[in-house]
């Protein structure tokens, strides 16, 4: 099975091809949708099974690592690009990190696929959706299982492309298309850094492969005892490593929505909820963390880069949480929550505990997917309504959905013994022990962020489920998303009573979502509850132990900083647990207390005050980041491009010179043609002048030296 690991990657790809041509195969739209609804989750879950089968084989290998071909039959040295010394092959790397991520991608991805079959059931373009969705899984798997940087970059940009396609899935709304553009372009800025980092890596290490069988891969060279070596065997300077790591981290900043390239993620909520769950919570945005973890051997030798990672992580965590406090769209709250949690993961990586970061990636995948899918169920039940100001009282109406969201909220808030608690606590304690100092500061901000996380999540629960309903059940106005609603360009369509889906939605009543949507939630809920306690560091460290061969040991990092290892932690773990629990429960309780007093409105501040309150406006407008970018790039940049570069420079100066030359020729022609007066006498005069000059010149020359010898007149006798 090991040699057939390519199946993991190919199954979703084949799904993609099948769905792409499914329109040609099936004439009946309903049949097509039915088949697609089975094949799409099917291939992903099949890939999951293959991954499960491959896992024990890889763990049985001595180094827990294997390189297998990507294209069956061509071997691991099938070249993709081979130009003048630069060679990249099609191959896959199977090791704990890649298999962990493969399990998450195919497992959680498969569950989300199942969910999506329910969520997108009424959308006429469901086959196109699953085409892109399967393609995304393929690209994400390529990213995590790539044997070399460039193939990882393929997956990296591939998921960016799929993200673009899926965010702008309902493209008839211009905002969705613009959100897709924004996601792709901001990601691209990060990709620029990644690409430059790759070039730096190749120029120093001579290869882009992570590990090679002869020990010459980038990470092999980086892992040499005594310091990283370059391709010639010389030590690599810390400055070079720092440059490389910082460039790679720029890529991570873009993909994982860290400061300053995070602005695309909230807008990305314009896509369908399964997209938000899979791409913008569980998998694509964690790609940055995966990459940093994969390159941990490089990072641990570049302490400056680690500091950057850590600070950006905590800053983003804090910022995301503060913005999440005031958002009204249920998905936006979760989006900012994702930004914030990603910050935690980078914080963990920054202080050297990569396994803690990956642990949080895993638990976050579970509970964030749970939350997103749950919110999708809420939205589905509310016939498309996403604004929490118009929700309320849903606990009685959709109790099962409520329970799922409840579990997810408590998991992310860090309620004791749920998985979020374990992973978040590991990160906080690692931050406290930060080898580059500022431990207590990081810990403090981290706790504050955790408090805010708990607060805004429970705020979400209260606004959505516990407060009094701010709508009339039975008269919900559907806000369906689909490309074929707005035929006349209007936003809402005319038939509010019954819609083209033929559901009982015609009554406008809230009701639970179908089993295809609920069952994945149950599975994710179980994982959110149980995974942490089984795998945590303090309960046996199974996760850490599993992941060990793929990450640099902390000892390397610590030795790079010459930090003393082995002293007692600042706060004993048990105390840390208590503090985290207190903070989490405090956040949850505070939200409950405050909102209990606003059961009718569900809002702490009245609307009128919101507009006046500067703090509120600052938070609500995302710390003015978007406004700033818009001002700089769109407005100023647009003005610069149009007025200056195009009209002034290109059309004015450069083309002006060209046309000016032509004009000058024309001008001279207009002047010189006046010589042709048409008067014969003028011509005669000119001829005469010419002759005079010519003869004059000749005479002048002849006066200097005669052309012919002077001849004597012959005597008078010889002539008559």
């Amino acid at each position, binding site marked *: 099975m090991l040699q057939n690991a390519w199946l993991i990657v190919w199954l979703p790809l084949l799904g993609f091809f099948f769905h792409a041509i499914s329109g040609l195969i099936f004439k009946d739209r309903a049949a097509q949708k039915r088949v697609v609804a089975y094949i799409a989750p099917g291939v992903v879950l099949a890939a999951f099974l293959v991954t499960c089968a491959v896992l024990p084989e890889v763990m049985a290998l001595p*180094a827990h690592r294997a390189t297998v071909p990507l294209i069956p039959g061509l071997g691991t040295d099938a*070249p*993709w*690009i*081979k*130009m*003048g*010394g*630069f060679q990249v092959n099609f191959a896959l790397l199977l090791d704990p990190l890649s298999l962990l991520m493969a399990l998450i991608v195919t497992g959680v991805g498969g569950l989300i696929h199942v969910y999506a079959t329910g969520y997108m059931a009424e959308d006429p373009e469901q086959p196109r959706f699953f085409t892109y969705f399967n393609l995304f899984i393929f690209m994400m798997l390529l990213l995590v299982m790539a044997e070399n940087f460039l193939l990882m*970059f393929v997956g990296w940009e*591939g998921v960016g*492309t799929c993200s673009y396609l899926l965010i*702008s899935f309902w*493209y*008839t709304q211009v905002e969705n298309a*613009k959100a897709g*553009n924004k996601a*792709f*372009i901001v990601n*691209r*800025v990060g*990709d*620029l850094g990644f*690409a*430059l980092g790759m*070039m*730096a890596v*190749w*120029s*120093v*290490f*001579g290869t882009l492969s992570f590990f090679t069988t*002869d020990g*010459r891969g980038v990470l092999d*060279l980086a*892992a*040499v*005892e005594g*310091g990283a*070596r*370059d*391709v*010639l*065997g*010389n*030590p690599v300077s810390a400055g070079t490593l720092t440059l490389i790591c910082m460039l790679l981290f720029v890529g991570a900043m873009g993909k994982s929505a860290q400061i300053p390239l995070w602005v695309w993620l909230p807008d990305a909520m314009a896509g369908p909820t399964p997209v938000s769950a899979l791409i913008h919570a569980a998998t694509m945005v964690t790609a940055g963390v995966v990459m940093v973890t994969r390159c941990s*051997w490089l990072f641990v030798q570049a302490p400056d880069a680690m500091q950057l990672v850590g600070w950006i992580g905590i800053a983003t965590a804090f910022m995301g949480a503060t913005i999440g406090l005031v958002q009204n769209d249920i998905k936006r709250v979760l989006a900012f929550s994702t930004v914030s949690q990603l910050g935690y993961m980078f914080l963990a990586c920054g202080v050297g505990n990569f396994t803690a970061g990956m642990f949080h990636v895993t638990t976050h995948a579970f509970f964030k997917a749970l939350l997103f899918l749950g919110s999708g169920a809420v939205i589905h039940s509310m016939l498309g309504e996403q604004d929490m100001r118009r929700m309320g009282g849903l606990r009685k109406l959709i109790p099962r959905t409520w329970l799922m969201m409840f579990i997810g909220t408590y998991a992310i808030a860090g309620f004791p013994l749920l998985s979020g608690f374990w992973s978040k606590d590991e990160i906080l304690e690692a931050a406290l022990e930060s080898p580059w100092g500022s431990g207590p500061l990081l810990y403090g901000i981290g706790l504050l962020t955790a408090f805010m996380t708990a607060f805004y999540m429970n705020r979400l629960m209260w606004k959505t489920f516990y407060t009094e309903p701010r709508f009339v059940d039975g008269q919900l106005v559907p806000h369906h998303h689909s*490309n*074929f609603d*707005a035929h006349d*360009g209007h936003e809402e369509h005319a038939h509010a009573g019954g819609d083209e889906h033929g559901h009982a939605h015609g009554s406008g009543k809230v009701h639970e979502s179908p089993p295809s949507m609920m069952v994945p939630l149950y599975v994710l809920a179980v994982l959110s509850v149980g995974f942490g306690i089984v795998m945590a560091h303090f309960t046996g460290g199974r996760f850490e132990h599993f992941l060990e061969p793929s990450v640099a*040991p902390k000892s390397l990092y610590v030795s790079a900083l010459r930090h003393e290892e082995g002293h007692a932690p600042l706060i004993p773990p048990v105390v840390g647990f208590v503090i985290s629990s207190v903070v989490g429960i405090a956040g949850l309780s505070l939200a409950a207390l405050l909102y209990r007093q606003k059961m009718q409105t569900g809002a702490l501040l009245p609307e009128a005050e919101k507009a006046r309150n500067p703090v509120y406006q600052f938070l609500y407008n995302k710390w003015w980041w978007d406004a700033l970018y818009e001002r700089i790039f769109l407005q100023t*940049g*647009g003005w610069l491009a*149009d007025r200056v570069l*195009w009209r002034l420079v290109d059309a004015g100066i*450069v*083309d002006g010179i*060209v046309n000016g030359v*032509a004009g000058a020729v024309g001008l001279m022609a207009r002047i010189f043609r006046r010589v042709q007066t048409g008067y014969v006498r003028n011509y005669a005069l000119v001829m005469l002048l010419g002759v005079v000059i010519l003869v004059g010149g000749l005479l002048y020359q002849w006066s200097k030296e005669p052309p012919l010898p002077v001849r004597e007149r012959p005597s008078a006798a010889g002539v008559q």
Partner: protein
Amino acid sequence: MPQSPIPNILSLLTFLPLVGAIVLLFLKRPQDLPEYHGGHAEHDAPHAPEKHPADPARTTVNLVAAFFAGMTFLLSLVLFGAFRSDYVESLTRNMQFLETANWIQVGNITIQYQMGVDGVSVLLIVLTTFLSLLCVLYSFHTRQRLKEFMVFLLLLETGMIGVFCALDLVLFYVFWEAMLIPMYFLIGIFGHERRIYAAVKFFLYTFAGSILMLVAIVWIYQVAGTFDVLSLSNPQTPEGKKLAEYGLRHPQAMLWLFAAFSLAFMIKVPMFPFHTWLPDAHVEAPTAGSVILAGVLLKMGTYGFVRFCLPMFPKQAEETAWIFITLAIIGIVYGSIVAAVQPDAKKLVAYSSVAHLGFVVLGIFSFTQVGLMGALIQNINHGISTPMLFFIVGMLYERRHTRMISEFGGLKLVVPMMSTMLLIAVLSSIAVPFFNGFVGEFPILVGSWISRKTYDIGGYGTTALAATGMILSAVYMLWWFQRLMLGPISRPENRHLPDLSRIEWTVLAPLAGLVFWIGLGSHFWTQRMDVAVEMILPQHMEAVNPDLPIQQVLDQQRIETLKRRGVVPMELGTESTRRVPPVQAPGASTPVVPPGPMGGSVPPSPPFPGVPPPAGAGQATPPAPGVPGGAEPDNGAPPAGPPSELPPGSFRGAPGSGAAPSGPDTPVSGPSSGNTAEENR
């Protein structure tokens, strides 16, 4: 010399379209269909309400033109198949299928008819015939003067193939100029509103550059006594030696010669600031004209650099590389930014061409093999994605008779297939991996990163600035796609546009297929260019930044490749730009030469982190010195514990010199720095 199955295949390829054009002239002229209200002789819209009576003359002209274009394409495929990528010979280098004949002899001036292809030209020829065939197919529905249109297309094809095959300077010049005339007519007769202005501007601008090139050609003849490109490029021939020595004695004059050639090519590429003819020419040209212009004619500028400027004037090219790199980067950034604000779709694509070809020029003048190879494949890539874009814009123009982006919107609902094709073309232009643009752009950027030339200008920031083209291209392309295809249908006229017709499918599908074929399997295409690139950029000309470790690796690889091929590296009268690697100071660790695989000591597996290395086994082999001249003790190993030198394994850098397989104390002979052959493996 490999034999082609068809003798004189190159002349056949070049002149078959000409024969076709002549045959077409004798055919009966098809009925002109009435013009559109816009007054252009452009295409028939697929949903035209009137059905014109089937005109047998029209069908005949179409079939004959397609026949000749198709035969030429098939011939080029034969050429492609018969081309041997690994053939190299010291005089003719990688050139194959040479045809030589005395063409013009006046006194003792001989102008030869010499044609040949190497790895670079063979791909371009296939591209040319392919695009010409697509253009002929697409132009079947030209309403007015169909016969003349086809005649001009075929004449143009002759000129283009001739340019890529010609190996005599005057012959090259003749074909170069011969291309201008049919193109001028295509734009001037069949174009849009400002066609005369655009045609004249195109002609005069390009012509001005070529005239200077003609002067340079004559001057070269005075210096070297021949027009033959092969001998002029090879300093070991007497003529080439004359040229090289002239360059040493009169560097100023040589610089002017180089500048004259370069100017002609810079205008053609087009490089900033000589690019302003391109937007006008593209906008006003008919669709097939734009496709050929973008797909092939622009390639000739970069081809000219590679075929003439680099081989004949290597020293001048190296010295002035910074100018070209700077202009290329300006082109990338500037072209992209200006493209973003164009209201006219064709102008947008025209400026995008400036940006893309900026990348190509950057790759060429990075003086690295990676960069050059990337540039050459990006050349081809641009010849696929930009024609695709122009075809689609043309298709939209046929349906709506406007090129203004604001006139469209929400078309994905109406023409989903076209939208998908446009998306493929857009993603290819943006250089998303697995599309063809990526396998061109990324190696170019890699080459730029490791190049000494770009580093000298502004450090690594130069490459970073060039790479921002990645972001900028995404900006304008995606925004354009969104304004065109996404969003609601903003104008009622767009509601009922028909989707792709059969001919449009026939034209777009192969291009889309090529996008993925090159994107996924670039090795198939680039392997043909390996040898040609090595010849164009000999080792002494390569300018890899010597501060980077990869430089020595690449050097060694080249030496090994040359040894394997049996071709002695050429020496030149000019001085080498490659820095001699400094002698390793004692105390620094030196590259380890491994004991051979059949050696006695078993190389232990590399120590994985977390797994302690096997205690001492086999690690005590002292590393061999990196420079011939005695063994040096390795002082890099820490005094205790596991040694710090790299585990033995086959280094990519060190040539596999044979080692006496014995115990750890025998010093192993070091790798030579290249010129002495050692054969014992």
